[in-house]
């Protein structure tokens, strides 16, 4: 919706001349070059990020800063349209930053393409269309391990242990799974990367309570192995409960931040974002 004239197909619904399926909407800018060294600080930090979609779209982020330490869980909450997903994408290099920078382990990675960031140990589960629908569950996981050249079978076993339903449906196209099952595939796919930092955009949306609890459990487990977790959540209470750090985003800028407990205790935050 960025008003890019090239993205306008005025209602063509005909599948016989174009394949409407799976076209990307993200512009991957940047290069594959080696990153420049930066200074010490949190493990991953998106610093003072300002930017929006497309070359000329309005700014959606306004000097927003998000950081996570090694082995910690950071949670972003905020109203719909605040720019939470946008902030995640910015950290992952999927949109142009007009200001600010992203540091990973002290290195400035602002100029890297998303693929390059994956190779630097970042994993991401987007909010929507986060699985390969035409590929089987197993192939989805394999794709998660695309950049790995070692034997990833043990990791796959771990994922299957984590989400047993996936083992059952391993040869079924992921597109035929229910909403919640897909979410599990998506998280599993990201875990296959064996990332140093895992970014999750609303991993529990549409997931039943029992699976949600299970998922949060796994996330804590994963964090304990030293992987940093950065996630956006609308199930804010549960999320903040397990968070080491919480950010409240309002209109693309940092509203409140603090430990998860602080935010849960803050009456302002409760009223305006957690539903009282």
């Amino acid at each position, binding site marked *: 919706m960025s008003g890019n*004239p*090239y993205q*306008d197909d*005025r*209602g*063509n*619904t*005909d*599948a*016989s*001349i174009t394949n409407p399926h799976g076209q990307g909407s993200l512009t991957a800018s940047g290069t594959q070059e080696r990153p420049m060294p930066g200074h010490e600080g949190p493990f991953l930090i998106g610093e003072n990020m300002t930017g929006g979609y497309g070359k000329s779209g309005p700014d959606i982020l306004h000097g927003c800063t998000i950081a996570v330490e090694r082995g910690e869980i950071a949670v972003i909450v905020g109203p719909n349209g605040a720019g939470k997903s946008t902030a995640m994408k910015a950290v992952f290099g999927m949109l142009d930053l007009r200001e600010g920078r992203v540091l990973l382990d002290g290195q400035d990675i602002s100029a890297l393409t998303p693929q390059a960031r994956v190779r630097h140990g970042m994993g991401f589960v987007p909010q929507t269309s986060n699985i390969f629908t035409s590929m089987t569950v197993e192939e989805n996981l394999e794709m998660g391990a695309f950049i790995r050249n070692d034997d990833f079978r043990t990791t796959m076993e771990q994922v299957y242990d984590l989400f047993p339903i996936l083992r059952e449906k391993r040869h079924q196209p992921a597109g035929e799974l229910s909403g919640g099952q897909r979410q599990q595939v998506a998280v599993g796919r990201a875990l296959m990367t064996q990332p140093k930092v895992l970014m999750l955009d609303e991993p529990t949306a549409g997931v039943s309570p029992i699976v949600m609890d299970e998922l949060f459990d796994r996330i804590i487990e994963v964090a304990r192995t030293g992987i940093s977790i950065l996630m956006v959540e609308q199930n804010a209470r549960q999320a903040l409960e397990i968070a080491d750090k919480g950010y409240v985003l309002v209109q693309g800028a940092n509203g409140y931040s603090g430990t998860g407990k602080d935010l849960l205790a803050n009456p302002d935050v409760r009223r305006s974002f957690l539903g009282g």
Partner: protein
Amino acid sequence: MFAAVAGLIIGTGFLQSWNSALLILNMGLISAVMALGVNLQWGLAGLFNVGVMGFVALGGLAVVLISMPPVGAAWQAGGGNILLGLVLGAATIVAAVLVWSRVSGKLRGWATAAVLLIGMVIYRMVLDPAVEAVEAVDPALAGYLGGLGLPVLLAWPVGGVLAAGAAYVIGKTALGLRSDYLAIATLGIAEIIIAILKNEDWMARGVKNVIGLPRPVPYEVDLQNDPAFVERAAGFGLDATTASTIYVKIEYGLLFAAVLIVLLVLSQLALNSPWGRMMRAIRDNETAARAMGKDVTGRHLQVFVLGSAICGVAGAMMTTLDGQLTPGSYQPLRYTFLIWVMVIVGGSGNNLGAVLGGFLIWFLWVQVEPMGQLLMTGITAGMADGSWLKDHLMDSVQHMRLLTMGLILLLVLRLNPRGLLPER
């Protein structure tokens, strides 16, 4: 934008000749009507019609059927039986459909097939000899039933109706199913229509062509022989030949322009009304529109039939202008793809854009030929005279036409991807 295209055409008038300019204008008007029809389907409803050619050809057929004088001998030879045969054929299909819907169970398929088979045999038994008889009547000059001998202008709406009829049948079967159907069905029907036109000689002489169709405007020669006209022309400082050719073209132009303007006004009114809003909603999101109580399939059918009818009218106009029906000349490249290019370059979804595209692309289609030559002369300018390469290139200069067209298309799309006049 319109001024620019008008400038191009007027420029042609000054640089080449007014006759050329008017001819381009007239074909531009017709192209604009076609583009309007396609825009209705594609720009407004996202319906992908690859069968424009077929509907245009049906319009052309209408001109023959309406305006040519009937061939008496042919009617005597077998006209009645041909009609009877056609009725039988139609009855067979109706019967088959009835059987299919009434009978159920295992019998259904067989019963329908049996009805079809028997019907077809009877149909062929009645039709074939009649066709042979008709086609034997003076095959070099007639060999067909002729038309009704009515004024040719009547053929324009009739062309629309014929095209609409075909579109209705296609739409009924193909719309509402997966979108690919429409593409295949229209592609197919266009080929089938052309095949019928080419091979059913009794109808419109097939590939032998019908020439000398009546005109809605006076003949140049008559004007040249009319002293009053010659005198008036002299008053403008024109010789009779030039004056008469220009006069005739202007009359055609006025007729075409009238049709275009009426259609354009109707389209614009429809577009800016709740109907247009509903169509936009359907295009934006069919599932939601359906859930909001809109009969998506029904609307699609409506638009498809209307758009095709417009193409039919344009086809009739074009055949009238040509003065002949030549089924062999209907080619998808020219009558389907080029029309699309017009719509997309002009700006799909915008009626005015489609009209503009019609004018511009037609202008280019005709004028790229000299442009290509120019380009090639430019390329070879630096080469030594008589060098092998230069000779080879100059020999191929005719093929620059396609190349130039491609280049222009790519340029326009690069700079104005949404078309020259985008939808709002």
